[in-house]
């Protein structure tokens, strides 16, 4: 049976300790969005000592570039984008207290190490389920970089947004474990 947790930002390391690779988390409350271009700007701001559009301490970032909302909806399709492209920028954000990242796909060894060091976890939402995931998003506000269009930073309010723990605080990695469990030898 899959273990299910419920979490809401702001989060501390202690809140993340019970999470194990393979567990399901239902997030509620505030989640920030940022993908490639927004990460670049956030880290440039940090490097220049400029203030960030949001306080990252204890927060959650979801790697997503949604489709525009139809007039009757709050957001369009909103599934995760591939996370490794954010790897180069991640440690700088972890240093500021970022606690949870949601995306899809593997992280680099450096990011995995940094997550353990700074007490953060990485989860995956179902990639390519953009319509389904959008239902858990209840409100959306663009808070920075509107010129980036789909890549602008948004503040989402979510309710029971589902994601699976990939990298937990103990250093486990669900991608590696899952693959090993089902691997079969190939004949040459």
């Amino acid at each position, binding site marked *: 049976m*899959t273990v299910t947790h419920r979490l809401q930002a702001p989060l501390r390391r202690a809140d993340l300790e019970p999470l194990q690779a*393979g567990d399901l988390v239902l997030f509620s409350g505030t989640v920030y969005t940022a993908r*490639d*271009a927004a990460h670049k700007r956030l880290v440039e701001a940090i490097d220049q000592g400029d203030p960030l559009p949001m306080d990252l301490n204890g927060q959650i970032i979801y790697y*997503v*570039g*949604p*489709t*525009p*909302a*139809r007039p009757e*909806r709050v957001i*369009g*399709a*909103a*599934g995760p*984008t*591939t996370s*490794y492209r954010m790897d180069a920028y991640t440690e700088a954000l972890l240093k500021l207290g970022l606690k949870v990242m949601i995306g*899809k*796909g*593997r992280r680099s060894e450096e990011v995995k190490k940094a997550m353990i060091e700074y007490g953060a976890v990485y989860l*995956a939402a*179902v*990639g*390519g*389920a*953009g*319509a*389904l995931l*959008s*239902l858990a998003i209840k409100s959306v506000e663009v808070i920075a970089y509107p010129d*980036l*269009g*789909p*890549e602008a930073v948004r503040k989402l309010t979510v309710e029971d947004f589902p994601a*699976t723990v990939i990298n937990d605080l103990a250093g486990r990695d*669900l*991608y590696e*474990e*899952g*693959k*090993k*469990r*089902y*691997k*079969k*030898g*190939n004949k*040459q």
Partner: protein
Amino acid sequence: MREIEADLIRQTIKNLFLQANFVLSPDVIKAFEKAKDAEESPVGRDIFKRLLENAALAKEHRIPICQDTGLAIIFVELGREVHVKGGELAASLEEGVRQAYDEGYLRKSVCHPLTRKNTADNTPAIVHVEVVPGDRLKLVAMPKGGGSENMSRLFMLTPSAGWAGVKEKVVQTVEEAGPNPCPPIIVGVVLGGSFELAAREVKKVLLRPIGQPNPDPEAAALEAELLEAVNNTGIGPQGLGGRITALAVNLKIMPCHIASLPLAVNIQCHASRHAEAVL
């Protein structure tokens, strides 16, 4: 000469991109249905259920299946007896794409490679035109996501690498991609041709419906062998571990230079979106 109005072409390509983004084709739905029982991993089975739910929701509410509504790739088969009236073929296709992405609330995902400035209307489209006999015009719209495209590879192997070398590279490409291209995937493989031909044809090979093997029995056997090898990686749905990493391997074999063995591996995600019309 048969005349086709440029405006009809614009309208048709617009509708095709809308349809492709909102309605997952029946062959993919059927493959999900089968996989949700066949997958050994319980987490994997659950993912197939969610993908089916996602497809149903997308269709009902006209929300894109995936937020990456892709580069607009278009394959055109232009009958040589067709005359496009009242405008240019290329301009009509671009305008159709622009309108689909604007009016359909699709994401604009095209930018300058260095400045990363968004072109804001999802153009230019990537158009491949082939002149064929007859008086028909066939249009295929294929919105292609970046996540799976980034995991695709082109290899110029040495002929001595042979089948074993080809198989190794295909499996390696899938292994390196791992969870990134949103498995379950469809693996397009083209063996032969030239550097650019292999890359172009492999995109077309992805249009072949899941479950329809290569008509040549020898190629079909090689496809089956590659599918087994890819699924033995254990990557599974979403990379969380499982038996079904790929729903299909579609292979095409073409003659090549005596010194070469080109191999193109194009990864398509489960959001395998394409729609076509014949005018």
